[in-house]
């Protein structure tokens, strides 16, 4: 069990209101990702759920019970920190056994559960080492191991992969997703990386300045972003925004088109432009094109032969256009 409900939760630090009244429900077994730019309040919200910060007002319910005033240790949640936060003076085994020791389990039980968790995370051969003798990836696995041993009702991840290098990040991302499928527990994962959000989440919650901009599945957010912020934040490279005549002609204030939804041609098309730069990734090619409406990014599958300075014609896929009004809200 691990259903988490936030009811009119607010948080202020002194006079600064970080989180205005906020309502959110995370269902049992769901992998929810909080995503947003730095300083948007997503980590603060996670810390409120964990109990590491006090809410200014509102209620936090865990499995239907009001946990607003419970201490972190009584909430039955486990957290994985960005800095791993391992106990440097304890071995891996002791680190992972610490929550069980605090729960008053017998040494035999602790031994059994720790070795089971170490097995799952491929840490068996490191059990006697201290955190200082491990690599970044191994430390992160120990931190995850410490979280899973006591079978919490939900896991909280606070940007757990930001200290790892790019290759390791992809591997650990897969491991966490696999872990979620195996354990089927609720997980709340905070990140500023929209790729992590898109690849891991059942449900993405997009934050901006403490406010939830949109909640939905990755595909929903990609296909039908509710406003300009979500449209610009989800998807890489970013969605192109076009204003002015071209937008008004199509009945909107701002027109959005993703780079992958534009056809290119050397001879004919709706918009004319000049190639400024091409990025060749092998599987894809990104072009940055200067047009009358401003700079536009285009993504093409495979290798496409355009050089800097070439004249190019662009045609948007009409059914893939996103329309936004003056307030930046989506026009259905």
């Amino acid at each position, binding site marked *: 069990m691990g259903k988490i409900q936030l009811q009119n939760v607010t948080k202020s630090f002194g006079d600064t209101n970080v989180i205005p009244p906020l309502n959110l429900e995370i269902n049992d077994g769901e992998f929810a990702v909080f995503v947003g730019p730095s300083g948007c309040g997503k980590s603060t919200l996670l810390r409120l759920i*964990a*109990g*590491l910060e006090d809410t200014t007002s509102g209620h936090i319910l865990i499995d239907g019970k009001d946990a607003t005033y419970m*201490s*972190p*240790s009584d909430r039955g*949640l*486990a*957290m994985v*920190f*960005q*800095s791993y*936060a*391992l*106990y*440097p*003076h304890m071995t891996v085994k002791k680190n992972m056994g*610490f*929550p069980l020791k*605090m*729960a008053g389990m017998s040494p035999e039980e602790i031994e059994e559960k720790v070795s089971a968790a170490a097995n799952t995370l491929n840490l068996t051969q490191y059990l006697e080492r201290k955190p200082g003798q491990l690599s970044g990836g191994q430390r992160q696995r120990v931190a995850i191991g*410490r979280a899973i041993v*006591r079978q919490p009702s939900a896991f909280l991840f606070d940007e757990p992969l930001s200290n790892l290098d790019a290759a390791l990040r992809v591997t650990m991302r897969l491991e966490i997703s696999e872990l979620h499928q195996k354990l089927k527990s609720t997980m709340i994962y905070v990140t500023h990386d929209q790729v992590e959000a898109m690849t891991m989440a059942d449900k993405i919650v997009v934050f901006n300045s403490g406010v939830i901009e949109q909640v939905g599945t990755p595909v929903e957010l990609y296909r039908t972003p509710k406003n300009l912020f979500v449209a610009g934040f989800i998807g890489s490279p970013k969605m192109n925004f076009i204003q002015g005549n071209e937008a008004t002609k199509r009945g909107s204030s701002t027109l959005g088109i993703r780079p992958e939804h534009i056809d290119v041609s050397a001879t004919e098309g709706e918009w004319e432009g000049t190639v400024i730069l091409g990025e060749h990734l092998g599987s894809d090619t990104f072009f940055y094109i200067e047009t009358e409406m401003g700079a536009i990014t285009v993504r093409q599958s495979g290798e496409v032969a355009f050089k800097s300075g070439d004249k190019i014609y662009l045609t948007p896929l009409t059914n893939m256009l996103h329309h936004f009004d003056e307030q930046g809200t989506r026009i259905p």
Partner: protein
Amino acid sequence: MARKKSNQYRILITCAAWGVALILSFPIIWTLLTSFKTEIDAIASPPKLFHFNWTIENYFIVQERSDYFHHFWNSVIISIGSTLLALVIALPAAWSMAFIPGRRTKDILMWMLSTKMMPAVGVLIPIYLICKDLGLLDSRLALVVILMLMNLPIVIWMLFTYLKEIPGEILEAARMDGANLKNEILYVLVPMAIPGIASTLLLNVILSWNESFWTLNLTGANSAPLTAFIASYSSPEGLFYAKLSAASIMAIAPILILGWFSQKQLVRGLTFGAVK
């Protein structure tokens, strides 16, 4: 060529370092030598460096005349007592300032340090009168309390610097792992802070051991520690250099030995936070 030059440079630096060390430790070496001289040799002019009649009788006379061990125990009780008392008060203070800093934490720390800037003699009369009224003149209790107060700012500062180095996330992790405040301190905070606590204790034992202003002014025969014991040999009847030297060596020997064996810990303690 470059290697030769660097060797010459190293020899030069080594000689200079030995020279400075010799100058700094010369008074102690001279005291040690004088303590093995007769009173006549001690005041000989020109001074005798090594060619004198070596004797250890000064040490016996000093012990016989003024009961070294009585003063030694006073020093032990006063220095360790005041340090432990300071620790009991400083640890919660440093903990709260390091982990739950308020808007005025820095000001409070500066204020604490500023009390060390005032000369001790400035409060001699009030403290003397308080001790007199409370009947605490010539008592070890009074010295324990006063030396504790004198060293408290340093103890708090040192512990604060150490505790500040412990990442808050580790303590938060302990809380998430189900540790209450007692377990958080017992299993996580203290084991991580032990090197810091140890060097703080060590330094403050040394400071209290060597403290001579209050120990000289507030003690009589009863509670006098080793500092007063040394001072008693510079008496109005005339100086007895050899005996004074023997008394000094006996007084500083315990702390010198303690410092020698713990110098690694001490250096780490003093430079902590300065070099990361």
